[in-house]
């Protein structure tokens, strides 16, 4: 929503001169867009406003009569509670580590898929399988591989009876591994699309001028892919920031592995604590707005390509 002002609109042509045809086109365009617009407003904008309103009340579904207006007190309760900050930290660790690893790995994959000749379609097919797999299934696969009673990892790595889910850091490692396995294909396909756009002549020219492979990568390929890289990063960062499935399945939030989405779910659905839960929801939404803002203004990510503006 904060993104609506990403671009300055070009000056409108004089409105008085609209022909009949243009007027009919406008009306038809609006009519065709209306269903999509209305559905999106009904399911996102309206509930978000509702959440803002609920967050100003002390309200539990189990005690509807006790509902009272408390102003911003829910926000101060959430923000002074160590749980919010622990979950914030967990979400931050998962996001930073998985996106960083995925960017490097995704780039390597994109490069291989770009260069490979024999086995090209086989690799491109194979990489889509993790992309399509259900995240809950991925979470179970990785959990059972590392779990003491069922897994093979401890035997293979000679770790004896080390319990991966016994403390925070190792549980996060498994969560992040599952996340990386499932989502690297997506980032690598976006990067591949960017890689294909870099004109082959630039490479040739640099080669003729005696640039090494590393120089060509750093000075020719990467700068020309900047738009694609930033878009892939923005999408994956915001996606990782919403992580819920993996920690929910693997740890149920034990050992400080709860994430912000998980906290919003627990407050609202498990505890039916609508007041504080809505405050968490609104704060979670604001963190996403801030991240998107940093990418768009700070890193100058050009979203016009993504939006499909001409």
């Amino acid at each position, binding site marked *: 929503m904060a993104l609506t002002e*990403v671009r300055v609109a070009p000056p409108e042509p004089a409105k008085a001169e609209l022909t009949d045809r243009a007027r009919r086109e406008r*009306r038809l365009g609006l009519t065709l867009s209306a269903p*999509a617009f209305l559905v999106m407003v009904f399911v996102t904008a309206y509930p978000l406003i509702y959440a803002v309103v609920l967050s100003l009340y002390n309200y539990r579904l189990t005690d509807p009569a006790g509902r009272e207006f408390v102003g911003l007190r829910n926000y101060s309760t959430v923000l002074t509670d160590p749980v919010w900050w622990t979950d914030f930290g967990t979400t931050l660790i998962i996001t930073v580590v998985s996106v960083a690893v995925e960017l490097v790995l995704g780039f390597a994959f994109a490069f291989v898929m770009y260069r490979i000749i024999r086995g090209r379609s086989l690799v491109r097919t194979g990489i889509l399988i993790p992309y399509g797999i259900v995240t*809950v299934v991925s979470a179970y696969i990785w959990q059972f*591989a590392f779990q003491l009673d069922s897994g093979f990892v401890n035997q293979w790595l000679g770790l004896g009876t080390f319990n991966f889910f016994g403390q925070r850091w190792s549980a996060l490692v498994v969560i992040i591994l599952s996340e990386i396995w499932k989502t690297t294909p997506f980032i690598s396909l976006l990067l591949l699309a960017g890689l294909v756009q870099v004109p082959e002549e630039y490479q040739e020219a640099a080669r003729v001028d005696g640039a090494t492979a590393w120089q060509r990568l750093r000075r020719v390929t990467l700068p020309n892919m900047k738009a694609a890289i930033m878009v892939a990063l923005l999408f994956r960062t915001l996606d990782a920031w919403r992580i819920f499935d993996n920690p929910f399945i693997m740890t149920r939030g034990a050992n400080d592995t709860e994430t912000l989405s998980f906290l919003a779910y627990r407050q609202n659905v498990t505890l039916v604590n609508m007041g504080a839960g809505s405050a968490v*929801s609104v704060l979670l939404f604001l963190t996403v707005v801030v991240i998107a803002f940093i990418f768009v203004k700070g890193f100058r990510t050009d979203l016009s390509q993504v*939006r499909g503006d001409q």
Partner: protein
Amino acid sequence: MATDRRVSGWWTVWGLLILVWALFPLLWMVSLSFKDPDTFRSGTPTFFPETWVWDNYRTVFADSLFTSALINSVGIALIATLLAVVTAMFAAYAIARMTYPGKKFLLSMALAIAMFPQAALVGPLFNMWRNLGIYDTWIGLIIPYLTFALPLSIWTMSAFFRQIPWEMEQAAQVDGATAWQAFRKVIVPLAAPGVFTTAILTFFFCWNEFLLAISLTSTDRARTVPAALSFFTGASQFESPITYIMAASVVVTIPVVILVLIFQRRIMAGLTAGAVKG
């Protein structure tokens, strides 16, 4: 020539490593699904089963918790996909072909919703759905799935639609075809691949969704497979549910594998078309 071939051979080797990386966890899933549920008592689990058994699949299909979830998943995902694709098709057509006020706004809104943290909505939706009486129903999941699938559908399809040579429609009419014939014989075959690709991607999204599925359902009336999997306890409380969960996982992965195998090219094109203009 010889060095070229050697270099290309290396890329194939790297490609094989990527394949191993992508498929090894699947092998582990299949292997677990064929294990005897009692094997985990031994304490030294192996990668492959000592004896391969079909029991887990039999148990899973005899469990109404799973079979009803499978029906819910298929029904909800197909209906939400159909609605999303039809709704997005109108919008994408307008975006690709017409000038009208609010077009930029619609695209920006779609982008914002694609980045929206769904968890921020579970509270209000949970409350609203209870008041509207659609909590724990198919429609209660179809509506939010439709919404969150729309951004991806709109981009992907408008990117495809923009590449269609629309002049051909007029050309056909000049050649004596009626407007309807021109649309059906010329435009529909050109637009169909984009619509179809969008449908596959949307289906993946709905098939995968978990957070809303556990937040907005409470019984097997509408609980989808990912949600049911998280509540799976196995045949009896004394048995580990691991092998059953994996058998059920294999079952829900089969449609994904089939779609990927048949439509690899389309999925690739669709994923990249919406994100970076090609």
